[in-house]
């Protein structure tokens, strides 16, 4: 995975990065040209994977999870208490891998199904996406105080 963001003197430029396994699964099994009779590969397991990712919506359990997630938020970490603590909090929870639950599920499933013969990027796949370019997230953090001010002003 390459670093996907750089900062020029006065402008934040994002550069596209190669796709991960989950991104690849999403496009190459579902999109692209097909001549039906020549598709030879067995796609057993792929359906499962898509369904798995979609069960997130609309059940009481889901709503209870939302309630639980909101209830455990420590709002004292937010707002006026200052940015550094908030950012520390985000980094910490990222490290525990609490974020992006659903996507995580898909990826785990994907590696189960397809095997993990490519072990060196396994770690990379399982990490929450936001932490992937470690150098750029540092930059993002440093640039966030201005964006925070701006967003608050807008809302």
């Amino acid at each position: 995975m390459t670093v996907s963001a750089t900062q020029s003197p006065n402008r934040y430029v994002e550069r596209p990065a190669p796709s991960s396994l989950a991104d690849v699964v999403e496009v190459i099994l579902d999109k692209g040209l097909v001549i039906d009779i020549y598709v030879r590969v067995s796609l057993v397991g792929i359906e499962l994977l898509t369904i798995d990712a979609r069960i997130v919506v609309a059940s009481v359990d889901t709503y209870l999870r939302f309630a639980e997630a909101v209830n455990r938020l420590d709002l004292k970490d937010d707002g006026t208490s200052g940015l550094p603590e908030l950012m520390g909090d985000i980094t910490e929870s990222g490290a525990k891998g609490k974020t992006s639950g659903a996507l995580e599920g898909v990826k785990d499933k994907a590696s189960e199904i397809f095997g993990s013969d490519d072990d060196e990027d396994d770690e990379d796949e399982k990490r929450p996406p936001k932490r992937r370019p470690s150098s750029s997230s540092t930059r993002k953090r440093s640039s966030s105080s201005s964006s925070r001010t701006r967003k608050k002003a807008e809302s």
Partner: protein
Amino acid sequence: MPLHVYGVTRADVVLPDGLQGLYDAPVTTVADDGLAALVSECPEAPTARRAELMAHARVLEQVVEAQTVLPMQFGMCMPDEPTVRHDLLVAHRPRLGTLLSELDGTVQLTVKVVYREDDALREVLHRSPPLLRMRERLASIPADAAHFKQAEFGQEVAAELERMGSRDGTEILGALAPLCLAHAEGKLLSPYHILNTAFLVRREARTRFDEAVGAIAEQWNEVGTVRYLGPQPPYSFVDLEAGDPAWA
């Protein structure tokens, strides 16, 4: 030996040196009258493990760096070279030719924006004082008595999150759409996924698009993460005309 087909380009395509496909087999071309299929040798029915899926995508990504390529769906295996020439290139020449001209000089860039759970929920509470009050009220009710109230509360939170996500998603799309030729929205896998859109972008407009995505990453940095993928072959823009029975 059967051939796995990656995609179709013009016959004057220049493949990157040492381009390897599935099972590390060298990628070559089968050409016919101006069109070329990118192929490599493979077993009767190739496996769809991580390595093979990634190899298919990487071959296409490397070729599209410099040239227009129409991507095939993964798993298209034809018995031999004459079949590739005849059943693919000759049989579908008009459509392939049209698509290649239409997509000439373009790449696909995909933008995915995902909220970070805690940050997004915090923002939801910030924007909705009634939800904040509801949360406080629920905190004072014993847990076992609050089951249905909690579900109700969660439902409200989910609804508010969805409203926020669709508003943010629309705003981001509005900023990027003017910079592309076409865009195709993909599935949103969870309420935290607010944008998953493929953009068809002219090569010469890529820098401007990079800048626009950079601006979005910065603006939404506080609640979410922007993932920016590409350049990809135009996976989402090779849909075939309805009514052509040869294509699925």
